[in-house]
């Protein structure tokens, strides 16, 4: 599976839009891009998954350019409760085991 690279940490303020970009240069044709969120002392939680272009759900949007070598998770109007670690993962054929990187530690300040 393709290795992912994302910023180690990001800071934001309440009400701002946060964009976390992830690179996955060696993504394969059958691979999907999936994002998980993890709060301290909890298991990771699925946020969103996409293959190309744009995917939106009630929590976030995922933007994937045509070459699929990167993706951007967009969190609209973050709140303090969005402080967490966000993981970008490449998954084979939409499912299967997950290979976690170090993730991006997002800190939302008042």
């Amino acid at each position, binding site marked *: 599976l393709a290795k992912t690279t994302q910023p180690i940490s990001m800071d934001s303020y309440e009400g701002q839009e946060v964009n976390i970009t992830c690179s996955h240069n060696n993504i394969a044709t059958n691979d999907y891009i999936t994002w998980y969120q993890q709060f301290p002392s909890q298991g990771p939680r*699925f946020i969103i*998954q996409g293959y190309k272009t744009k995917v939106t759900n009630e929590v976030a949007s995922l933007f994937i350019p045509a070459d699929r070598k990167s993706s951007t998770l967009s969190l609209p109007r973050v709140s303090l409760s969005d402080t967490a670690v966000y993981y970008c993962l490449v998954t084979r054929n939409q499912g299967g085991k997950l290979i976690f990187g170090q993730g991006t530690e997002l800190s939302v300040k008042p």
Partner: protein
Amino acid sequence: EAGVTQFPSHSVIEKGQTVTLRCDPISGHDNLYWYRRVMGKEIKFLLHFVKESKQDESGMPNNRFLAERTGGTYSTLKVQPAELEDSAMYFCASSLPAGINTGELFFGEGSRLTVL
């Protein structure tokens, strides 16, 4: 509907002792995964069950770790004998069967293992 449940939430044992962690997946989820996170390190894959069969156990660190899923329902992960470096948070996750799998893994809250 109940999510993935893990027991115990925290276990403290001495080096050389045995510990068994249990995971109850969401009902109907054929896929069951074990992961662990050593403090300060990344979450690492341990193994994957499809029903009662081990699909992929490439992440199991050594033969002190034994995972079972008899009957394809709950799973246990036994560490025997435990070593100091086994201290970690152990996560279990489950997902729907192939064919209707949306790609989402549902994680439990984890079992924290501390080996003294």
